[in-house]
């Protein structure tokens, strides 16, 4: 009798709590953090992949407009989370809708996404991403994504309801919009710090990883079962370009080789480095991101037309 009463009261209390927790969890949205919404949206037919450069630059809605589609989704994270490797590929497989047939996959590449800062750059068991959200989030398409919120959300849960971070917004299509002061002094300061970090710290820490390089190929081959894959190298600040050219002088050759082997088209936009605005020497400003997205969209259209023409000729 006493036990029954205890169990009933405890269960009722717990149920009330769990319902409240659930109601709070469903408040999580694009303001929650830079990654959550990517794990809280349905599986997708077309994906944009890469690191934070791709996350902040490539706008799915612009591409969708240009390509007359509605299914592109930006599934890019950061160089720590989504450098190419087994973890990222596994997560891509979870995010991809297996019904996809004519999907479009834009793989953004740069020297850092095929490098590793571990002692042995080819030891995949010590890759940084194994400790991060992409590795530990099994379910990438449920809302609310309680597993992610409990394990990886690093603020207090009251932040889900109050005090949203208004400087950042992760859109439903996966594009990460960051709003920072763009006066010349702020931009210069951020650029200086970022370039210094890359030059003085990351250049020596990051080394080319043949494992990651092979996983770019594996990722392409996997995605080719579901649609068309395109390789893109996004524009970077000229100072960053200098660092990258020194870091991996044969980067373009490597990517051309992949493109040739896998028969995918490769767009290298680094010729246009000086034409755009950067927030910190590493990431494009959203206005420039829009232009870059349009360029990519038009290039894809062109490639599609070429393919159609070739097929007609045959």
């Amino acid at each position, binding site marked *: 009798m*006493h036990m029954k009463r205890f169990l009933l009261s405890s269960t009722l*209390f717990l149920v009330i709590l769990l319902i409240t*927790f659930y109601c709070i969890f469903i408040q999580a949205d694009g303001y929650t953090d830079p990654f959550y919404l990517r794990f809280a949206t349905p599986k997708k037919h077309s994906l944009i992949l890469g690191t934070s450069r791709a996350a902040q630059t490539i706008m799915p809605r612009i591409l969708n407009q240009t390509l007359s589609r509605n299914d592109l989704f930006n599934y890019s994270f950061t160089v720590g989370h989504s450098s190419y490797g087994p973890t990222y590929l596994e997560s891509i497989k979870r995010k991809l809708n297996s019904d996809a047939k004519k999907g479009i996959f834009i793989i953004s590449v740069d020297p850092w996404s095929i490098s590793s800062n571990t002692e042995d750059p080819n030891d995949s068991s010590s890759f940084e991403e194994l400790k991060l959200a992409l590795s530990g989030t099994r379910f990438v398409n449920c809302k609310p994504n309680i597993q992610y919120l*409990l394990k990886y959300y690093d603020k207090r*849960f009251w932040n889900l309801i109050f005090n949203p971070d208004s400087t950042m917004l992760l859109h439903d299509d996966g594009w990460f919009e960051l709003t920072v002061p763009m006066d010349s002094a702020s931009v210069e300061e951020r650029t200086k710090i970022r370039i210094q970090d890359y030059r003085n710290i990351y250049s020596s820490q990051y080394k080319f990883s043949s494992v990651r390089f092979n996983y770019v190929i594996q990722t392409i081959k996997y995605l080719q079962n579901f649609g068309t894959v395109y390789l893109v190298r996004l524009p970077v600040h000229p100072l960053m370009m200098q660092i990258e050219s020194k870091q991996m002088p044969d980067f373009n050759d490597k990517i051309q080789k992949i493109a040739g082997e896998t028969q995918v088209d490769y767009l290298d936009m680094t010729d246009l480095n000086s034409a755009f605005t950067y927030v910190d020497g590493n990431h494009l400003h959203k206005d420039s991101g829009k232009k870059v997205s349009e360029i990519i969209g038009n290039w894809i259209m062109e490639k599609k037309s070429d393919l159609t023409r070739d097929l007609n000729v045959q």
Partner: protein
Amino acid sequence: MLFNSIAFAIYLPIVFLLYWFVLNKSLRTQNLFLLVSGFVFYGWWDWRFLLLLVGMAVSNYFIGISIESSETERKSKSWLIIGLVVNIGVLCIFKYFNFFIESFIDFIYLFGYNLPHSSTRIVLPVGISFYTFLSISYIIDIHKKNLHANRNAVEVLLSLSFFPIILAGPIQRPSTLLPQIANKRVFEYDRAVDGMKQILWGLFKKVVIADNCAEFANQIFNNSAAYSGSTLLLGAVFFAIQLYGDFSGYSDIAIGTARLFGFNLMRNFAYPYFSRDIAAFWQRWHISLTTWFRDYVFLPLSFAISYRMTKERILFMKSDLFIYIVASILTWFLTGLWHGANYTYIIWGMIHGLFLILYQWQKKPRKKLLKRIGLNNDNPFVVLTETFITLAIVAVAWIFFRANSIEHAFKYISEIFSSSLFTFPQFHGGINAYIALLFSGIAILIEWFGKEHDHPIAGIGSNWPKTVRWAFYYTIAMSIFLFAGKEQQFIYFQF
């Protein structure tokens, strides 16, 4: 397994339901189940150190029987010594090996010799200081004939590895736990409900108070050279709150959990920060440890010294005071050393020892002074002043507890008492710092109004309508969920 983890939230109801519904027919099976559950709980952290725990418990089981069944007192004492060597030896190897080696190297360096530093780093098994002390009290109590050596291995092993207390106490002596283990437990609604309340309050103190304060205490202590005196003072306050919230919170969860299974454990904290003197503080802080040291170190040492004392006065003081001083110094040296393999803990212990000695010495002069100025002992001004002084002493001593080195501690304290003490504290805190301070203030108020009870929310709301009472508990639970700070390991796990 941490108490504030999802794993424990799943583990506890499963163990609870199996314990009361499936295995309650046989006491033996119930005890065996609790024992195995305890091994799962402990082994969740690292199964290799589970072997150490089991090995220690089994050894002490046999040593206890050997002590009791010895034909002569001498043989019994020999077994006791073997048991002490085993227990203290294991503790020394795992906890103090690195410290002793480094101290030896530093000592030799004073003579101009440079020995290479050891690259061997022994991992400290969680809870070793606690279960070693359980084992020591078991065999000593048997030797002193305060406890019968139980032949039931499951019961003995369970008393030495009971899961709620195995990681960080309370140090519930087998002499008080074994009778509860050996007798059938009956589910009591009030005890279970009170246990749940205590768990809730413990979680609040740990997750909301301690973990939030830890963020700022760590920030300030880890970069103390960059901060003003006022900020360092605030850092010391944050740490004092963190330590209390963390440790008393853990104890509350442990005691509350045990109550769910029908066990009554000793109280471990009795609102120590409301103490008006250092002696009262140590009657209320980590009670299980201080009583352990009192019963197994201080008192035997005092008796041993007084037995050899022939004179009434030594070194210009009465022999009683001399005995008290010597026994206190040694006891507090060991208390400090128990807390950690670092000189900072030893200094911390000695500071408390010194103030306890001063407290004993000042009793009579204080009485005379109060009489002379016409204030009685319960005068609010006197109470407040003394409470404040006690808190200040404790908080300054905590600085040694938290600092990385003795040098760091002294620098920290000297910077507090500099001219920058009178500036506004500045650190990276934002709204989270205000949340930490706000909740700390709320917790202090709740503890003040509930201080007549074992835990403050035991009595709060007992006269309220059920819905209001539930709303109160719901608010605490929601605070835990919404305002939980970044997860920090329980501080006492490192001991």
